[in-house]
């Protein structure tokens, strides 16, 4: 067997040997030019959706969350579904930038910045829901442990409180991580821009970065530390979100598989969303050679892996429900798959488990249009996963007398739409104001960037 040199050779991460200058130009082009019509259309749609959500939310504040479909027994519905969904989306970014960084997966470079930004926007979007889902959102401050004259303290046994800490920590760390990564790029932009106003902003944001050796040394050290800090958070945040359910006594919620199952699901959904957005972005901003098809293929492999893990969890839940011998638990799962909400269950199951199996085929992994359809389905499926967990477990629990169906209202859909509106409005603004690819990092992985011994 002859030695195949191409087999061990790494695929180029940036295709077509662009010069550093060309990379700068491509990446900063959206920042230097006036927004295109395409951008305005996209931004307009997103912003309209955001405003629809804002109106629905405003009415909810004014009249009460009775405008939603939540009821007895389904106390949580779209509010918490959206929360868990968006938190899940927010898992890919940190995973890509922190864990893949620690594992020296260089292919992450092209997508890391964008994924991190999406993480931050997704967590921002997610963070709205715990705040608005309460009956009296003006008293949400009670959820924070602050000293007060009533000597009232929060209840540290409540997973909802853990959520408050987990999500705020995650947001802070992700934000700092993202910002630190941006500093060299800000400096580059500062040096490139001709507008005085922009220069001022970039000057402030770049914190006096001059690209000196010492700067780079500190930068690398901080980046490594933050990556180390973020890595456990990627696993812990969704674990804690899953505790909202796992700590309860409700059959269908009270399962020990939830933490790993939720984390896998979160990564799955996060990669789904990152792929969805990147496929559009690389096309719109002509970055096909930076965000390459090889990168997308790698992401599809992760989708296949996590989707299969999620599928394992779905099946394991059934097995445990039967194996536990708990008739109520078993009922809940049979009811999930064959009861009044069976349609939601099978949407979830097919989108998350069946369809991603197509990624076993290389042709499909490398086919952009099929990938796009499949990742869209992953988004749908993962939203329905939370729907299935929350609504179907609540709607038929212990006492058949209190069973009831849940019907979302127009306000529920409006706020769901608004959450997408907020996310994409932020994504559009980001794409227009900040470099969507880490310029400094991408230069390090272009062909010929590293010294070689020949």
């Amino acid at each position, binding site marked *: 067997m002859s030695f195949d040199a191409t087999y061990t050779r790494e695929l180029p991460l940036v295709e077509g040997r662009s010069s550093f200058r060309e990379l700068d130009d491509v990446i900063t082009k959206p920042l230097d030019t006036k927004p295109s019509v395409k951008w305005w259309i996209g931004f307009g749609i997103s912003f309209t959706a955001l405003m629809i959500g804002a109106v629905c939310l405003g009415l909810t504040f004014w*009249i*009460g*969350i*009775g405008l*939603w*479909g*939540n*009821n*007895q*027994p*389904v*106390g*949580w519905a779209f509010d918490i579904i959206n929360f868990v969904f968006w938190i899940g989306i927010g898992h890919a970014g940190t995973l890509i930038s922190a864990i893949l960084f620690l594992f020296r997966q260089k292919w992450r470079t092209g997508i890391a910045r964008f994924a991190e930004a999406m993480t931050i926007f997704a967590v921002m979007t997610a963070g709205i829901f715990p705040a608005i*889902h*309460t*009956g*009296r*959102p003006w*008293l*949400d401050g*009670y*959820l924070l442990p602050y000293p007060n004259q009533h000597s*009232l*303290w*929060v*209840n540290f*046994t*409540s*997973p*909802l*409180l853990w959520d*408050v800490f987990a999500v705020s920590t995650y947001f802070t760390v992700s934000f700092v991580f993202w910002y630190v990564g941006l500093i060299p790029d800000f400096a580059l932009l500062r040096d490139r821009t001709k507008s005085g106003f922009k220069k001022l902003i970039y000057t402030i944001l770049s914190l006096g970065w001059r690209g000196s050796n010492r700067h780079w040394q500190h930068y690398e050290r901080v980046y490594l530390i933050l990556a180390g800090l973020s890595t456990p958070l990627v696993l812990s945040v969704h674990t804690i979100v899953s505790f*909202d359910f796992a*700590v*309860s*006594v*409700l059959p269908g919620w009270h399962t020990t598989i939830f933490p790993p199952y939720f984390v896998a699901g979160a990564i799955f959904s996060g990669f789904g969303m990152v792929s969805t957005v990147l496929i559009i972005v690389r096309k719109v901003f002509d970055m096909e050679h930076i965000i390459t098809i090889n990168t997308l293929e790698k992401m599809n492999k992760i989708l296949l892996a996590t989707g299969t893990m999620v599928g394992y969890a779905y099946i394991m839940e059934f097995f445990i429900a039967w194996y536990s*011998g*708990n*008739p*109520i638990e078993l*009922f809940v799962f*049979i*009811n999930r798959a*064959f009861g009044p909400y069976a349609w939601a269950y099978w949407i979830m199951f097919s989108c998350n488990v069946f369809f991603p199996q197509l990624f076993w085929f290389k042709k499909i992994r490398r086919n952009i249009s099929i990938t796009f359809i499949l990742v869209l389905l992953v988004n749908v499926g993962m939203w329905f996963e939370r729907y299935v967990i929350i609504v179907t477990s*609540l709607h038929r*629990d*212990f*006492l*058949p*007398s*209190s*069973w*009831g*169906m849940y*019907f979302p209202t127009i306000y529920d859909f409006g706020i769901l739409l608004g959450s997408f509106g907020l996310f994409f409005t932020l994504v559009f603004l980001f794409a227009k104001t900040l470099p969507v690819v880490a310029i400094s990092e991408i230069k390090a992985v272009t062909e010929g960037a590293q010294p070689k011994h020949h």
Partner: protein
Amino acid sequence: MDKGADKEKNLKSDGQTYWRSFSELYNNKAFRDALNSEFSSEELNGLRKNSKSSLSRRRFLALLGASAAFAAAGCSNYRGKGQIVPYNKKPEEVTLGIPNYYASTCTGCSSSCGILVKTREGRPVKVDGNPDHPVNKGKICAKGQASIVNLYNPERLKEPMVNEGGRFIQSDWNNVNSKIKEALSSANSSGKQVALISHSVTSPTFKKIIEDFQKAYPVAKLYTYEVFNESARRSAWEKTYGRKSLPVLKLDEARVILSLESDFLGTDPNHIENTRLFTSGRDVMSGKEFNRLYVVEGAATLTGFNADYRIRLRTDAIEEFVLCLISELVVKRKISPFAGDSQVLSMLSGYKLDEFAAKHKLDQKVLNYLLEDLLKNQGSGAVIAGDMLPESTHIAVNFLNEVLGNSKLYSRESESTDVHPLSTSDEIETLISSLNSGNVDVVIHLDSNPVYHFSPDYSYRELLKKVKVVITLTEMINESAELSNFIIPLNDPLESWGDYKTRSGFYSLQQPVIAPLYNTRQKETVLLEWTGRNYSENLYHDYLKENWEKSVYPMLGTTASFDKFWFASLHDGVAFIQEKPEASGLSFSKDAFLKSVPMKASDGYVLLLQNNNTVGDGRFASNGWLQELPHPISKVTWDNYAAVSPQAASELSVNSDDLVEISVNGRKQVFPVFVQPGLADKVIEVSLGYGRTAAGVVGTGVGVDAGVLVSAKPAISDRLYNNISVSKVSGKYELASTQEHYPIDSDPLLKDIHKRRGIIREGTWLQYKEDPKFLEKERHKMDLSPINKPPVYAREDYKGYKWGMAIDMNKCTGCGECIMACSIENNIPVVGKDQVIANREMMWLRIDRYYSGTPEAPKASFQPMLCQQCDYAPCENVCPVAATTHSEDGLNGMTYNRCVGTRYCSNNCPYKVRRFNYFDFRDHFKDSYQYSESFDLMANPEVTIRARGVMEKCTFCVQRIMKEREDAIRENREVIGSNVTTACQDACPSDAIVFGNVNDQDSQVAKYREHELGYTVLEEIKVAPNVTYIARLRNIFEKE
């Protein structure tokens, strides 16, 4: 610094004489400059006096304060709090914060039960039963409890009204009274009739006033009617026993009860007493064998579902069934002297029980049990027939009771009396014909609503146009008032005086507990005025007192002064007198039986027009609390419906929420369908009292008026029709039910799920007798020992007193009176039909109804479900803000102020007993109807009104527990568990609810908790609930 320099200067000018240096002393300019700029810097120069604002510090602070105050005042949106003024002179008996209780009488229906009204600072806040009243003994039905809402109904009429050209103009009493008196005199002089139309008259003094009125206006005639009446029973009684008064049935002594289409535990006006007597024969603590209830019915009533054996039979065949039963006993088994009576034998010759059973597919085994039981318990059995059955059935039932010697159970001491008999249909017929011929000048509706109640056959609405003057005395606008010339606003019963007599041996008194809220008078006063008396506030009070002095006081034969007697009677609410029933012996005559024409069964559909527990005959339609009280069987709120059996539903190809048109001899009405398991095939049940067209914002248009189907000359009885036609019509109508419907037997996943989950645990009396601990063996199969360890979070050890509840399911009939008591006690808002559909009803206590068996012949189990106050409450550890916490005495408390409304507690509650304020329901329902000013007075001041977005739930009436705690502290004693009763416990007519300190081993609740039939719901999830249910035992021969 700067300031120092100023001070320095001031000191100088003030002529201070101390100095620090010579240059200072000599006031050298250079020194002064240097001194001024000693710490000079650019910043500090900005603070120099001459560059400072002219605003002084004080003035700045004053302005700051003022602008903050203005801003606060401008932005605040608080309601006017009103004034709280302490009593200048404390009224006698009233202490702020301490409730007063007054005995009175409920006038919600003709039963006239005694009530005890709780008032706080002069305003009634709760109505309970009067414990001294011999009929209802401290209990009162939901309607009676909710009557407090009527008092505060914001839509009550506040002034007399005159109809001027179709519009009602507010008038004053003098004007109205003089005009009416004029009309009455002119009718009197022209010899035209004055028709007084009233519901049944149960007040002797009111009857006397009518007699006075008739003396003043001899043309006046009184007509009385009642939609739900027992005329058939009374006339049957008169025909068979020759007496008008019905003796009271000693239901508590009955060993076997056969109920024929009688809802004596449910919608019967006297169901409170019946329930108490019936369930006293099912006391598991007494150890005595239970009585046995057989129910033969076409409808699906609460009584039927409480039966040990329920036999479904179309209603129009019930009389044939009775005759077959008699024939079986008399002809076949030669029971009773009638066995040798040839007339009787020939009459019964055509009736064969086995043929009948075969024809109607009755279970022969159950019929044998029934026969054996009736025979075995001769003299201690009772056969009861429903009010809607015709006279002939009642006669047959009287005969059957006589055959079995059951007349022993008729009380010889107590009988129901009739102050004034209801008008017969002939009498109403004459009224109609006089109206038709224009012989009636004045019609006075005495708190009655015949336009709505009378059969459409009478065309009463049109006939009223022929009457010169129509006067309606009413509390609220109604259909009859709308067609009147004068509307006289009446006092609420809680603002009125009165006396009532429904039984021999005592009178029941009514006294006002609050001064009239509006410019209203009571009907007795108004009639007295029209007879020529001058109005005074005490007009009727004085009349009543005088009448009592003359007619009641002498019957007492006491030496005590009248005043003493009067005040004692007022205090007690009842006055006992020495009174013998008409005749102590009963003499039965078989003639009526031989002469009566039996009801003919048909093959077609049967229509039953039913009574209900909520709106009654429609007079409570404007009471939202009653409209929202779920029907005890179907759990439907805010509507009536055509209940059809599953078999009929498939025959008519309809399902729940479809529409059907029911037509009876040309009279038609369209109803929404509700498929009711357990109805006899081809029997359709509809409740009367709905579909009011003038009942205020709450009651107008709720449900469909089934009264339009009532015939003036019914073939069977006014509430029972056969051979009716039913057809599906297009369209849908959504009914609001508080319980989800799911197939009860087709889905193996759902069948008997409540039993499989151990929520409902039942057995039979025989099983219990054989093995008192049988329930123990049927406990959850799961091995609980691994989790029977202390849970994660340590909790109180409950060393002192600890509250707990026990509910005896053998006594609970599922009537729902407790729900109303809870709602009124705890200020629970009405949410409206749309919110019930959205599953957001707010009742803290609900009665779960589960079916088992087949949809055709199901068994029902009822279970009151309320917060179980779990020791390891799963709601508590998930609340992020610690708004729900545990108390040392075992209560799961709710701090409304702290609650932010995450609803996590509700999700984690296995019993789903928590209720969330999705809206400000008081604001959301009917355009802030519940925020009307008058309703503010109704609220129980001991219980917080919950804000929007707050979770709430049952707290075992913690306000009552606190009261006992305060009393104990004040009296320096221990808290005594039995001193506290919960509102639901107070209301339970069968005393099925027991509450108290479970640590007190002698307490009743502790005994129930230890009882071998006691179980807790969902014990396997180890939340340690504190509500113990006593498993229901069915007294049947088979094993379950």
